[in-house]
């Protein structure tokens, strides 16, 4: 349950106190009711790996994992995530070892500017968790919520194809 507490700003509604697990760390946070999960990550917690490309759920650059499922962080209010387990791109590598998808993205040059990359990676981890995508066309279809204006789709597809088997063996992220 979320609790409320008064905030400094005169006339502002009370902030809510929420608890969540972020990249493996338990966190207790004070959030305004209108703050999106994406703005919480980027502006309050300086986790700027999750990107804001449209703020409307149209580009996928803000994709993060909530309880292993991929969602657009710009379309979720932070207060809705009380008790959730959240993984952002900053939490994909473990003990300094890159996630198989991160490694594959480097080897396949699956990005140019890098601005959609965090969302592509989290989305691909979510895709692996879903247990779907057994053909190239299925990967293409199921990764179509993540735009890449640089047009690195060919290499993104190749990287995901490379890493999917290892992701499935490794289980949820």
């Amino acid at each position, binding site marked *: 349950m979320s609790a409320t507490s008064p905030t400094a*700003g*005169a*006339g*502002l509604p009370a902030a809510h106190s929420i608890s969540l697990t972020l990249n493996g760390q338990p966190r207790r946070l004070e959030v*305004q009711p*209108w703050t999106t999960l994406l*703005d919480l990550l*980027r*502006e309050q917690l*300086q*986790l*700027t*790996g*999750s*990107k*804001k*490309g*449209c*703020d*409307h759920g*149209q*580009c996928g*650059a803000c994709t993060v994992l909530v309880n292993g499922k991929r969602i657009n962080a710009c379309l979720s209010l932070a207060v809705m995530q009380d008790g959730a387990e959240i993984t*952002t*791109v*900053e939490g*994909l*590598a473990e003990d300094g070892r*890159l996630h198989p998808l*991160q490694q594959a*993205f*480097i*080897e396949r*040059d699956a*990005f*140019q*500017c*890098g*601005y*959609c*990359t*965090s969302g592509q*990676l989290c989305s691909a981890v979510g895709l692996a968790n879903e247990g779907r995508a057994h053909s190239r*066309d299925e*990967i*293409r*279809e199921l990764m*179509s*919520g*993540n*735009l*890449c*204006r*640089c*047009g*690195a*789709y*060919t*290499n993104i*597809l190749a990287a995901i194809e490379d890493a999917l088997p290892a992701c499935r063996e490794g289980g949820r992220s």
Partner: protein
Amino acid sequence: MTAHIGKPLDRVDGPLKVTGQAQYAGEFAVPGLTYGVAVNSTLAKGRILALDVDAAKAVPGVVDVLSHLNRPRMAAYDESYTDMDSADGAPFRPLFNDRVLYSGQPLALVVAETFEAARYAATLVGVRYAQEPHQTDIHRQAPHDAPAELPKPRGDADEAFARAAVKVEAAYSSPVEHHNPMEPHASTVVYQPDGGLTIYDKTQSAVNTLEFVSHIFGLADGDARVLSPFVGGAFGSGLRPQYQVVLAVMAALHLKRSVRVTLTRQQMFTFGHRPQTLQRLKLGADQKGHLEAVIHEVLGETSRFEDFTEHVAEWSGALYHCDNVRLAYQLAALDVYTPLDMRAPGAVLGIYALECALDELAVATGVDPVQLRIDNFSPVNQNEGKPYSSKQLLACYQQGAERFGWSQRNPQPRSMREGHQLIGWGMASGAWEAMLMPASAKATLAIDGSLVVASATADIGTGTYTVMTQIAGETLGLPMDKVTFKLGDTSLPKAPLEGGSFTVSSVGTAVQQACQALIKTLLETAQKDDDSPLAGATPDDVECVDGCLRLKADPARSLTFTDIVRQSGSPSLEAQADAKPEAERDKYATGSHAAVFVEVKVDEALGTVQVSRVVSAIAAGRVVNPKTAENQILGGVVWGIGMALQEETQLDHHLGRFMNHSLAEYHIPVQADIQDLQVIFVEEHDRIVNPLGSKGVGEIGIVGVAAAIANAVYHATGKRVRDLPITLDKLL
């Protein structure tokens, strides 16, 4: 010998990008940061009578609302607002006065302690306008001649066309497009305790941003520094400083506080765009398809305050041999923002029309489209009367056609199908310039043997960090991990705009020359010791291998870099180079070329088009990094698919406003739209373009793609769609 050039090395900034550690302009944490959100005009032309800011200022957390009424002092004259990519005319001046010049123009900036407060308060700013009639329809505005230096007419094109055995005359149109890099334009201005500014900006030139804001706000040398280490795509949108940086600097100076302004996706449609064009092509040829007349007339759109021009028609006088050519270029001035260079500006439009018209000529003459282009090949750019320094376009045709299987093509439209899918094969040529701009770079060798090379260029995803590291490492014989390349910082040696596909050519040459100058410095330093093993050697006598300087003739006579730096008595040795085009270049025309082959599948019942296969054969000189270069071409092809089938910013002429200003309604290719894309780099040696022999690959990949798709759609369906994008309604 350490060889990096030509190797498909991983991006040096890859680890930062896949772990979310690469920081972009709107992501730098600053204590006490305030957030600015712009308020944009809702009409296309008029004056602001009144601004009601009371409700906005009453929102808790709002610091101030800036507008033309209370902004700090700004320069008044147009010259102060010109930049490195200005168009002719009077540049837009944000919040300068009460005039509204286009729909979406920023009129005010709300600054608050939090992003949410600023965003909400911006919705509460009331604007009372005196509206004036506007015109945004290119078809309803009298055109004027473009202030562009077109090649003079040669021969008599109209007379040659009149008597030509085979004639093609057709009109083509292309819509407004917006760059839409994934990262919206953003600026974080850090107000330093001494009043100085550190400006993180999304730009294709930190130097351009610094000079621009310095002129506008009267900043002296040293008052500000611009940083831009990572840029989340730009494609031309960052060639001119955009209004968010002006607003952020303005607010920081006014409030004496740090300010961030990030544009929304909707606001990404409130500045430059690829202009709408209407083009008319007349091709006259003999029965075998040899060109006897080319007439290319272009009408482009511009704003009321600037004349934006690009090279649209020129290509029709350069790519093929023809002795009778007339080119024309006019502009229609509309109540919109000034258009802006967008990936392969001009070329992508002019060559679309030219290559579609050539396909129509191939049909009219019965000559195969590839053969037609081979038969009209020109090793000389007749516009300039100069031979190309290299033009391996024939090899592109040959290798592309072979990989694609073009020889199996039945020229008859509607001759191939799979169930209800009509299949078509089309092709086109592409071309882009191979330019070289003055650029500087500095190379610094530390006592531990590590090298830092720096130039104030940018990496907008193109791979600049990586290829410059390769060039420096190769020149000094160092492994990649001993070399660091720095960019995006106005404290570094000057570089040109990152654009036009001239960065590898220009900055790469400067990096190479700085490293060569450093070798000379190392040698001179080594030779200060009378017993030096390199005594008497000239720079030509030595080579750099594994962190050592040694005699080519006697590798045993060698010194480590570390020893030489230590011997100098200083912690490091450095050298700078200011590279310029060589005079030899003036004797030649220079350009990159492409042949694009496309297969489309068109659903006969639904009119949907899928590009199922593309082979793009590229001649761009020496490829520094085949991995990042191939990625550039793949991206260009994706852009061509967007241009051909999806991208169009639609104006409501009644409101004078772009209507589909979101990524849900402005369609760009998604993963499912992209099928089998293949890239071939044909071998091309060119010692004239620059010492590296490299032409750049940022633009060439898109040029020709839209025409090849349009030609393939014709081959599939028998329908010639001459208006981009080719949406299903045009095929049913």
